[in-house]
């Protein structure tokens, strides 16, 4: 394709300064913050195109066995990792084994976990991935950055620290230096041959370097564009979005997977009663709150299960529970929350309708998100809910302080995934033998479970999506979750930098096609 597809006169070389937010502990790993950078360094087997189809990358083609249990990938010829190791079937099989069995990437593992069986090299350029049960979403899932292929030689011969800081892949860039606390310097891989089918040009990266800076402060990050100190910034503060649109190239990416929606604790507390959950859903103008909090930049998402960017999204489901305070009041009255105490909070048997709403403060919920919650809180108050907003620190949340059902009634969070099979990860019943810590609604519904499993193994995409749609409806009908907004990534790009694009599965920026104009 045309290297100048982005317009303008391309100039070779140059350094892109990219302002990112969070610094991950390692470059490769199962956190999306890691996928963002590792995407620059590691190539995947396959990639996702704009239209949602899976396209070749390191694998030129693939075949699925008739029983749906075996995927045979044919690898591109002559591709080498930057340490000289060939990207062959052995290497790919080793990577799968590393993720799934050696704790190499827990997110990769969890995406395909109960289905995956084994990977093996058939010959130098053919690798076979075997499953226990048919799992069609596999190909889509494999387009995520978590499935980046590393050099086994490098991995085995180097220290853990080196593998953490400078994973060796076959990608468009290599990690030149990591100035911790400041930036990761990525250098062009001049011998790059394995660009994906979706690339905007063929050949190695056009720029020489990408300086991947960590700028936590939104004001600084955005302002650095205006002074020319950076060329691309991530997470444009929504207050600046209009300004950004008028001055820069902007990209807004709606993340597929679970949107930012509330898990509703169906095991203990007031929300064990479905009517109360529904009243909760009806009781606040979530759409307006989201618009106010995010200044109209980030779309409201009524579907608690999957976001509008996810294949198999059920748009009908998203329309449920539109703001209706009368309905909410009626539901609560019927549910027996008829009395009000001095603070106008509804009570039942003398107990107030208090909801502990735990949210990750600062890292899942930015200030903007916190504003949304406060607006909702105020509206819920009108219909008699007493909402206790409980900001949780990263340490508390990750340390498991709020995992027990007694600790919260509702908690919002998201989970990015390019496939609706995310439903299985989130809504899989949690049993004593097979606990599912991700099912934070503690919602064990056998029908739902059956429908999702059926969908996950349904080879026909239309049928599968139909089943996924049914699953979304079950969740929504039972108000086991309540939708809020889509998880988004926003980018602003300087006018003189062209062809910065986002890969489809997770919205990671791709710099290997980007070029400066003269």
């Amino acid at each position: 394709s045309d290297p100048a597809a982005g317009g303008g006169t391309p100039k070779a070389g140059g350094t892109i300064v990219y302002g990112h937010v969070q610094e991950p502990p390692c470059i490769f790993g199962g956190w999306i913050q890691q996928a963002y950078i590792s995407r620059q360094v590691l190539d995947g087997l396959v990639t996702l195109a704009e239209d949602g189809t899976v396209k070749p990358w390191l694998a030129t083609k693939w075949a699925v066995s008739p029983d749906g249990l075996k995927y045979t990938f044919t690898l591109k010829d002559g591709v080498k990792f930057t340490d000289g190791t060939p990207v062959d079937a052995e290497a790919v099989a080793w990577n799968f084994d590393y993720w799934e069995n050696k704790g190499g990437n827990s997110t990769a593992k969890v995406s395909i976990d109960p289905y995956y069986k084994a990977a093996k090299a058939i010959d130098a350029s053919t690798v076979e991935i075997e499953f226990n049960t048919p799992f069609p979403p596999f190909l889509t899932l494999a387009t995520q950055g978590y499935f980046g292929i590393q050099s086994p030689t490098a991995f085995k011969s180097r220290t853990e620290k080196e593998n953490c800081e400078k994973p060796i892949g076959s990608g468009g860039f290599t990690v030149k230096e990591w100035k911790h606390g400041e930036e990761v310097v990525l250098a062009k891989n001049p011998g790059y041959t394995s660009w994906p089918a979706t690339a905007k040009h063929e050949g190695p990266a056009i720029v020489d370097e990408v300086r991947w800076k960590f700028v936590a402060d939104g004001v600084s990050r955005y302002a650095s564009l205006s002074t020319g100190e950076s060329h691309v910034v991530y997470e444009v503060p929504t207050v600046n979005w209009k300004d950004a649109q008028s001055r820069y190239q902007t990209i807004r990416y709606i993340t597929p997977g679970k949107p930012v929606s509330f898990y509703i604790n169906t095991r203990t507390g007031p929300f064990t009663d479905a009517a109360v959950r529904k009243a909760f859903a009806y009781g606040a103008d979530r759409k307006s709150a989201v618009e106010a909090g995010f200044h109209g930049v980030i779309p409201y998402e009524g579907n608690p299960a999957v976001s509008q960017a996810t294949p198999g999204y059920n748009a009908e489901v998203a329309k449920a529970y539109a703001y209706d305070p009368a309905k909410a009041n009626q539901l609560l009255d019927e549910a027996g929350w008829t009395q009000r105490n001095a603070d106008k909070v509804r009570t039942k048997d003398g107990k107030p309708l208090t909801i502990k709403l735990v949210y990750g403060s600062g890292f899942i919920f930015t200030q903007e998100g916190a504003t949304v919650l406060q607006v909702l809180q105020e509206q819920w108050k009108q219909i008699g809910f007493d909402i206790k907003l409980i900001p949780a620190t990263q340490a508390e949340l990750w340390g498991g302080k709020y995992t027990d059902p007694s600790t919260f009634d509702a908690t919002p969070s998201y989970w990015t995934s390019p496939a609706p099979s995310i439903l299985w990860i989130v809504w899989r019943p949690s049993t004593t033998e097979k606990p599912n810590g991700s099912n934070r609604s503690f919602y064990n519904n056998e029908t739902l479970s059956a429908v999702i499993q059926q969908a996950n193994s349904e080879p026909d995409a239309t049928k599968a999506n139909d089943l996924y749609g049914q699953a979304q409806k079950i969740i929504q009908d039972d108000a086991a979750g309540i939708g809020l907004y889509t998880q988004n990534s926003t980018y602003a790009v300087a006018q003189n930098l062209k062809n910065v694009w986002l890969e489809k599965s997770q919205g990671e920026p791709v710099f290997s096609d980007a070029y400066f104009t003269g």
Partner: protein
Amino acid sequence: MSRLRRIAVKAVTSVVVIVAAASVTFFAQLAVPGDRANTLMNLQTGQDKKWSVDELAPLNERFGFDDPVIVQYLDYVTGLFHGDLGTSYTQKRPVTEVIGGQLLPSLTLTGAALLVAWALALGITLLTVKRGRFLTSLGTTWEALTASLPHYWVGVVLLVVFAVQLRVFPIIGGTSALGTVLPVLTLAIPLAGFLGQVTRDEFEQVLQQPFVTTARTRGMSDLGVRVQHVLRHAILPAITLSGWALGALVSGAVIAENIFGRPGIGQVLVTAVNTRDLPTVSGIVLVVAAIYVVANLLVDLAYAIVDPRLRAA
């Protein structure tokens, strides 16, 4: 001999203080509720769920989280005396390295802030103490104002005015000289107000001392009296406070680093506490404590240079 002994005692107590600080941190972190392996697992996956015992087993095994606390502690302390601060759970690097890379920017920032604060405080004191109503109230008001300024607010305002609007300084200058100016000012301005107040108090008191009058009766000018006699006495309390101030600056540095996207141990500390990266947190405390101890030794030294009375004691 007794001098040597005093130095030896001082050195030993310093080491005790440092190790104690790190040990307190070690135990304090164990007291933090929540499971370290669970945190690590969530950190690796970007999730916030509870993992099963089986899932956490490898991590527990690897970092020895299941060992009795006392074993973990002894391991840690033994390591300390071998110069080994342990390995970061999250970054997979030795803590010495994690901190090492961030120490210089932090020291530059706090050190420069202290110097600038001193320069500002002294300049303003010399120019405005007892210089007529107007200048004096200008000086006191400035000091009272700046001493009350919250760091972060100064930082944000400086950033917007000088970097975003006027573009005099870079916004994300990192550790470059120009990029260091605003973070340094962020820390220095409130501190200068504080040091200035202390110095001014003392300055005023010293100005009334008989020896100052004596100097005047010898024919010395006002400026001469201020610079040659009063100043030296007036800076003593501020010197004492500088050791403490350096400790406080470390806390302030986190904020400045945050706003100006500057590397430094402050940032690492916040992340490490959040991710329950125990060795890193303890390591940072150890280093900060060491800096504090050294700073206070320097303060003692500076004090003894300025005030030889101490040397006699």
